């Protein structure tokens, strides 16, 4: 991305080099550098997340919620905003919002109100969206996420972002633009589906933090079951509000970035937008308050045609809906109320499943693994189960197994963009391989080789491959002695150096021995023999 910028703005390229990249700025180690440069503009990022509630029916009508269905087949008269229809609130959506709010440490508003947000667009048949602007269902929460920082990006740094409010609102329909015939095709299947809008305070500073926060949010929502949080399917939509300013000064003009379809693109879009703001200001211009769309192909943000200046939504209370009341516990329920008409916060709190952060701590406690390992375990879908299955089938310590799972397995999966469930190596097969290594049949470098071979030919067990390719450790003393002797004889200079006190040269001789034996020599034995021969 920096190369692109230097091509477009050759004069500015030298300036850019002085400003450290946003990613580096996020790293806690580089803080001292930021203070020394007074021209430093930092990015300010606030996210607006729309999470589609995982429910059977829509927020205010009884029509079905499904991802793909024939166009306009999941539409009720209310969704099409036909006259004479009224909204009826879905209890499951309220419970989902309360559950999410509790998981994010929010304060639940016992009484919340519904409003109308007016704007004209073909996929919003009513001309307004029912939302909760004045008094949402929950306010003041926190989202704790972790980014990998430190020298080797292996240190887990905890960050907290404040959630301003969580509100229930309606989704709009889908519009397909047909530029050929200059028309838009409207599908109202999605119109009226319940959304939880999470408005976050602008307390993040770069794309990496935003991406980590959204990833954590995805894990939380998936664990709760309130949202499937799949960004590519549109179940989780993130808009980023980006601005730059000098630390301590008031916030700069912000722009909104939309049309981001994955966590990776989110990070790139935000970083690009921060850079764009910085460049505009460096050139002496002013940043326009506008909405921009992210183009994943070019990695740039482009202004959106349809937005004309600042929108005035003319918020008005929803006259058809009384206030929404949720009750703290069964004791505070008014007499004579039907149980199925009441949402009780205490009950929902009692039914909360294990959240990702708790799970991570539990894994560290139970297995004695490092926090960054448990981070990776919980981050990948199904990896915890895989890890635990391997542990069951092997006698190896969890700390020794974890490296294989988080480095080897995950590395191979990521390379081929596969999920854990698609892994050609089953937990039991990996366990067998580790057993062979543990028992001394093969060395660790050979084990990695066997792993790759197992990946290429699924179905073959580790033992089979070791036998076929004769990869067993050579522990035969006489054979090793003769090889070592050969190496020692052919390298008198090195032997002389070792005898004079330079012990590090021994490693070179070891390397030569390993080359002779094609890496199958037992390193411990080889070292002992060489030391004996060169003493």
């Amino acid at each position, binding site marked *: 991305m920096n190369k692109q910028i230097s091509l477009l703005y050759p004069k500015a390229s030298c300036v850019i080099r002085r400003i450290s990249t946003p990613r580096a700025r996020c790293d806690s180690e580089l803080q001292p550098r930021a203070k020394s440069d007074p021209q430093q503009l930092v990015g300010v990022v606030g996210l607006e997340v729309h999470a589609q509630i995982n429910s059977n029916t829509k927020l205010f009508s009884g029509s079905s919620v499904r991802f793909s269905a024939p166009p306009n087949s*999941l539409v009720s008269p209310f969704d099409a905003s036909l006259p004479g229809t009224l909204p009826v609130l879905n209890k499951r959506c309220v419970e989902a919002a309360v559950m999410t709010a509790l998981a994010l440490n929010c304060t639940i508003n016992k009484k919340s*109100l519904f409003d109308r947000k007016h704007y004209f667009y073909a996929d919003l048949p009513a001309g307004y969206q029912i939302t909760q602007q004045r008094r949402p269902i929950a306010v003041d929460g926190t989202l704790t996420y972790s980014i990998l920082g430190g020298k080797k990006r292996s240190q887990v740094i905890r960050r907290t972002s404040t959630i301003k409010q969580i509100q229930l609102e309606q989704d709009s329909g889908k519009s397909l633009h047909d530029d050929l015939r200059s028309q838009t095709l409207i599908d109202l299947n999605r119109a009226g589906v319940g959304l939880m809008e999470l408005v976050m305070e602008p307390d993040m500073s770069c794309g990496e933090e935003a991406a980590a926060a959204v990833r954590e949010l995805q894990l939380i929502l998936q664990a709760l079951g309130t949202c499937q949080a799949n960004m590519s399917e549109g179940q989780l939509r993130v808009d980023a509000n980006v601005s730059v300013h000098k630390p301590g000064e008031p916030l700069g003009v912000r722009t909104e970035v939309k049309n981001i379809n994955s966590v990776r693109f989110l990070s790139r879009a935000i970083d690009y937008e921060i850079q764009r703001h910085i460049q505009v200001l460096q050139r002496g211009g002013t940043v326009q308050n506008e909405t921009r769309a992210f183009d994943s192909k070019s990695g740039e943000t482009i202004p959106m045609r349809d937005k004309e200046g600042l929108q005035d939504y003319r918020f008005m209370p929803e006259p058809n809906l009384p206030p929404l009341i949720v009750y703290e516990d069964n004791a505070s329920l008014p007499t004579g109320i039907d149980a199925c008409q009441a949402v009780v916060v205490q009950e929902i709190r009692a039914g909360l499943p294990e959240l990702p952060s708790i799970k991570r701590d539990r894994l560290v406690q139970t297995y004695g693994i490092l926090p960054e390992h448990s981070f990776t375990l919980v981050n990948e879908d199904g990896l915890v189960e895989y890890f635990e299955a391997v542990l069951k089938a092997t006698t190896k310590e969890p700390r020794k197994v974890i490296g294989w799972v988080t480095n080897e397995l995950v590395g191979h999966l990521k390379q081929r963009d596969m999920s854990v469930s698609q892994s050609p190596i089953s937990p039991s097969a990996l366990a067998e391989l580790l057993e062979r290594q543990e028992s001394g049949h093969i060395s660790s470098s050979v084990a990695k080789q066997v792993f790759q071979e197992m990946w290429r030919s699924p179905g073959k067990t580790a033992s089979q491959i070791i036998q076929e390719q004769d990869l067993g450790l050579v522990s035969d003393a006489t054979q090793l002695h003769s090889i070592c002797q050969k190496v020692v004889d052919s390298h008198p200079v090195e032997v002389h150096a070792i005898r004079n006190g330079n012990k590090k040269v021994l490693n070179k001789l070891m390397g030569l021995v390993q080359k002779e034996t094609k890496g199958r020599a037992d390193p411990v034995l080889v070292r002992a023999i060489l030391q004996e021969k060169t003493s």
Partner: protein
Amino acid sequence: MSLFSLSAKCTCRAVSMKSHRPSFNLLTNDGYSVTKVENLHRRNRCLQSHITRVTRLLSSEPHHSKVPKVATWELIPEDQLPPPAHLPADLVDQLERLALVDFPTKQGLACLEKAIRFADQLHVVDTSGVEPMDSVLEDRALQLRHDAVIEGGCAEELLQLSKNTVEEYFVAPPGNIPLPRREERATMMKHSEL
């Protein structure tokens, strides 16, 4: 009495005039009052129902009207109201854009300003310490619906409502066509008139 209340529904302008009219006019079924009624009500069937109601009322006790004999509302003096709102042309343009309503003529604008002035009377009311009410339903319970599918699957019926559909999709013009600016609209209107 029903005569007056019906007249109030039909033409609001009539209310202030009719409220202080003495009630004995109702009981005399002379042609004069009937004709007056005819002038006010454009529909004949109202007249028919009045005559029947008049005859019914004749048989009851003297009726105590809730409608005051003298007008009870009074004009609020101008000095009590906040200064009149001046609407710059840009604001009018923005309002037209937001609500998609048209104020093409000076009369329309004058009507809007008068309406705002009328609403300014609300400022005279002292609302300190009063919790604003935004819905008459505020003390009713919000009904919660069980999460089960009970409607949908009526694509054909819905599509029939639109005259322009393509393969089960509704058709709309591309994107959001922004309302042309004031000057452009004036020229467009002139052209359409020609």
